[in-house]
């Protein structure tokens, strides 16, 4: 059975009704986005992979009782955020505020592959947590204002205001760093 043309809600419905392969399709559809977000929130890609694995293990149980009050990605995004916070709490470090203690510990190919995630992490490191989320979801994940507000659990106006403040802060930082912001 092909799940490519199915919407997110349809995929979850098929999973809930016990159609084999539906959960694998959910994993294939969302794992890249969740992995990217986890790469920014955590300090190494191995932990990001562990987080995504844990999110889908929880999703296997949680999505069975999913009531479609929000989008499935919203549920997965919030779970990813919570698991990342748990990981960071275990490390006794503040999420996103500090650079990794040993950034060169990862293999060479990993450093090059995930360089963008590291740059974004350092870019948004000085922003408050809500502004970081808005920048990640709205700018880098290309989500709409509505999707962003649903994922963050706030109003659309709040998303716009947070995004405005965040872009002002980023522009100032980039000017200080001498980057082109035309």
């Amino acid at each position, binding site marked *: 059975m092909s799940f490519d043309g199915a919407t997110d809600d349809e995929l979850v419905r098929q999973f809930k009704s016990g159609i084999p392969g539906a959960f694998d399709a959910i994993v294939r559809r969302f794992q890249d986005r969740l992995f990217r977000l986890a790469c920014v929130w955590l300090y190494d890609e191995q932990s990001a992979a562990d987080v995504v694995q844990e999110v*889908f293990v929880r999703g296997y149980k949680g999505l069975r009782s999913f009531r479609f009050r929000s989008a499935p990605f919203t549920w997965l995004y919030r779970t990813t955020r919570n698991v990342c916070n748990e990981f960071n709490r275990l490390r006794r470090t503040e999420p996103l505020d500090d650079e990794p203690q040993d950034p060169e510990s990862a293999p060479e190919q990993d450093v090059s592959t995930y360089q963008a*995630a590291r740059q974004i992490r350092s870019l948004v490191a000085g922003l408050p947590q809500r502004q970081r989320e808005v920048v990640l979801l709205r*700018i880098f994940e290309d989500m709409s204002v509505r999707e962003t507000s649903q994922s963050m659990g706030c109003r659309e106006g709040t998303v716009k205001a947070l995004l405005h403040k965040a872009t002002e802060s980023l522009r100032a930082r*980039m000017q200080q760093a001498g980057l*082109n912001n035309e």
Partner: protein
Amino acid sequence: MSDDMQDLKRDYQSISAPPYLATRIAASVAESRTRSGFWMPAAVTCTAILALVWMLPATEDSGSDVANRPSKPSMAALAALKPTKPAMSTPNLSQLRSVSVPRMPAKPKAVKPAKSQTNTRIENESLEEKTHVYI
């Protein structure tokens, strides 16, 4: 948005999960499914043991009952049975008369004190006098 930001966004969106991740997720989901049902064999074993423990005394009791149960009596044998009352020893009247009962002691005579009688008489006399006066 600046060109640097566009480049950064493009690089970011090109990040994909490692190819082994989907396999790892499938394995861990299967493991969690197994883990969530690991108590089933233990529960079945415990239930079986409890059922055995509960049933063994019952079978032993039923076996001993069968062995010790008397054969069913026939109606004729039941009809031949007479109710036997326990023999009670009734006392004989002559025996009752012969029983010696000790005599009751004599009733003591009541002795009135002389003083109290005098006082009573005096009181009566004074009452008579008073009555007489008022009349």
